[in-house]
């Protein structure tokens, strides 16, 4: 009984380890999904739900962009805004086929959207699902510039305008620093009548930093975002004794290797195989010991029978 249970537990645990291994190592996703997960999700979020980069997996986005334009952006990038160029022709690491696979995957996230939209007009294109509820939302435009304030502090100036070029007043703009491990909040400011929101950052970076201003959008204007490369300054670091703990511009990026040994979507096969073999080895030894117990029991039973027989005689 007891050894049966131990055996069962052992087998169950083994099966578990095996399925887990199979799942992680040989998962059966479409090729584009894996590529997207590896190369794009860090900025565009899981399934393109958005993050540092815009949400490109949503129905709203896909409804308004055709494959050709998406492939073009992906291949060539938007250098000024922090979107890398991916095609081999532009110095990236993806082949044209791979890019096409990624776009096909994105398209599959929103099957209803057509892959050839005639216009990629900035106004929200009504899609079948969202049409009835969408009010007239005007596209907004955000620009970000750098100026120098007192003591050499950095002043970030974001200007928000509507589609028609008119400034939008009273909108909250949040500023952050984009890093490879997430956005560090720098603070926020409201736009004035000129559509200008300014934020003074007390410290000056010693190396170039990526800064982002973002407008969440409101009832009448759509969200927008703008990035800027802050150039380093000679009088680096903490201008007027800003707390070191909050030093978010001067803080260095962690030194992760670019293709990230820490960011592995699947376990490396050889070490994983070794690992599983060791675990299986230990459990086989357990099985061997349980077998010994089984034999102990059997030997006892046999002897009992023998005893009874002699007794009868």
């Amino acid at each position, binding site marked *: 009984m007891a050894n049966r249970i131990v055996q069962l537990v052992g087998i169950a645990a083994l099966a578990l380890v095996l399925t887990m291994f199979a799942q992680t190592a040989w998962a059966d996703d479409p090729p584009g999904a894996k590529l997207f997960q590896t190369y794009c999700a860090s900025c565009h979020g899981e399934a393109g739900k958005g993050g540092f980069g815009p949400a490109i997996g949503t129905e709203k986005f896909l409804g308004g962009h055709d494959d050709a334009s998406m492939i073009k952006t992906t291949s060539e990038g938007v250098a000024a805004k922090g979107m890398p160029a991916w095609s081999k022709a532009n110095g990236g690491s993806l082949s044209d086929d791979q890019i096409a696979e990624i776009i096909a995957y994105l398209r599959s996230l929103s099957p209803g959207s057509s892959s050839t939209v005639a216009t990629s007009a900035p106004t929200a294109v009504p899609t079948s699902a969202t049409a009835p509820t969408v009010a007239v939302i005007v596209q907004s435009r955000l620009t970000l510039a750098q100026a120098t304030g007192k003591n050499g502090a950095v002043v970030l100036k974001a200007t928000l305008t509507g589609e028609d070029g008119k400034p939008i007043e009273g909108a909250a703009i949040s500023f952050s620093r984009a890093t490879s491990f997430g956005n*560090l909040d720098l603070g926020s400011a409201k736009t004035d009548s000129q559509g200008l929101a300014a934020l003074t950052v007390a410290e000056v970076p010693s190396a170039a930093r990526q800064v982002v201003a973002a407008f969440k959008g409101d009832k009448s204007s759509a969200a927008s975002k703008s990035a800027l490369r802050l150039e380093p300054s000679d009088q680096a670091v903490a201008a007027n004794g800003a707390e070191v703990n909050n030093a*978010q511009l001067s*803080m260095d990026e962690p030194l992760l290797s670019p293709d990230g040994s820490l960011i592995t979507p699947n376990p490396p096969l050889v070490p994983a195989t070794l690992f599983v073999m060791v675990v299986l080895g230990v459990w086989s030894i357990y099985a061997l010991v349980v077998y*010994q*117990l089984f*034999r102990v029991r059997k*030997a*006892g039973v046999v002897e009992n029978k023998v*005893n009874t027989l002699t007794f009868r005689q």
Partner: protein
Amino acid sequence: MQRQSAREDILFQPLRSNSIGFYLFCAFLLAIIGWAAYAYYIQLRDGLVVTGLRNYIFWGIYMTNFVFFIGISHAGTLISAILRVTGAEWRRPITRMAEAITLFALTIGAPMIIIDMGHPERLPNLLLYGRLQSPILWDLISVTTYIVGSLMYLYLPMVPDLAECRDRLTDAPNWKRFVYRVLSLGWRGNEEQKRRLERGVSIMAITIIPVAVSVHTVVSWIFGMTLRPGWHSTIFGPYFVVGAIFSGIAALLVAMAIFRRVYHLESYLQEKHFRYLGLLLLVMDVIYIYFTLSEYLTMAYGNEAADQGVMQMLFVGDFAPIFWTMILGGFVLPGLMLALPNLVKNPSPSSAPLLNLRPLAAAIALVVIALVTTAPGVGASADIQMATVTPVLRLIGIIAAIGGVFWVMLPFMQAHPIGTVVTASVLVNIGMWLKRYIIIVPTLYNPLIPIQNVPTEWAHYTPTWVEWSITAGAFASFILLYALFSKMFPIVSIWETSEQKPELPAGGGTRG
């Protein structure tokens, strides 16, 4: 033969009858456990906000308990397996106790992880979406392997004793006899059975050693594989393993002392057992101090920006009281208690006049301690370079005071060797619990991304009553399980201790 049985009767005594004191003790433990269950209900209902854990300091005393219990679980493996493999005869009466500690420490320690989770129902996700490249999954696998292995390792050498119980305790309640009958696997002690069992025991004794080492190494890797200051260290594996063995021996010594007293096992657990284990504890203590020095000196010497924050907090900042209590009270003091009575000879009569000064020395020592610990001038602002001499004076004062106390206590300690070893063990266990706390929390105070956009109190961690209650409950459950085990099965291996003969006994029918 007859005399032998009388000695063994002592071992069966706890299995035969329960005193009223035992029931009261269980009721007391159950009350604590009930209270902890209530606290956990509150935590499930309201979420982790009822604890002191927040976004940045997300591990606290739950994790401390986890590492602590996994640590003392090494008692069984090391003492029992290593001593068995190396054929140390004196291990015989203590192996069972040690193995039971292992099993119960694991049964209590492993679930601490689940208690630490805000959404325990998401635990299956660890398996469903587990990443084989994550140390968390390694931990899950190795702890599972270890629990199963130590259960088997506890059970195997118990089979002949279970047969003994089956044959002797014929007046036990039916359910108990049923358990003995099933678990003893029809043991008759014939040649075939002995051979099989012996093979099983030796295979397990050898297998369980690397498994145990791997478990604590993997626990350390959960910390070490991150890039965080104070955790990202190559010696963490061996450091944790040594720490585990260290606290495991200490836990075993405490358990031995309690069983010896309560179950009258003086004839089994003799002074020499405490002395040998005490020396083993001393060795581990010294190795652990060496590791600790090596770890912190390397960090402090390099003085990297990220490490600085942690070092500062430990040496002079928020955690300094705990840190120094642990170093001095948990490692140095027990070390001296274990070493000095062996090193210093009994004072000769000629030094009698000097001995009369003992009370005076004690008083002076206490005054010095009081003075140095209340001396102003050392606060969070002092830096690691020890810019002022105050800390140095303080250190000298403390050392002098400890020396004084020892001079006073020495004859007493020599007169009570067991008491001394056990007291040292208690101190070690407290020290090791604090050590785990000190490993986990200060690093979380110093995240790589600055703590931002959260209420200031989130940057600090203070355990709440919920956490303390659950911790108390965990310890109470451990003790309860252990006590119940000792009521159900002989806590000292009968066949292994009978006349200290290594042979497996012939079972039931042939005896008497």
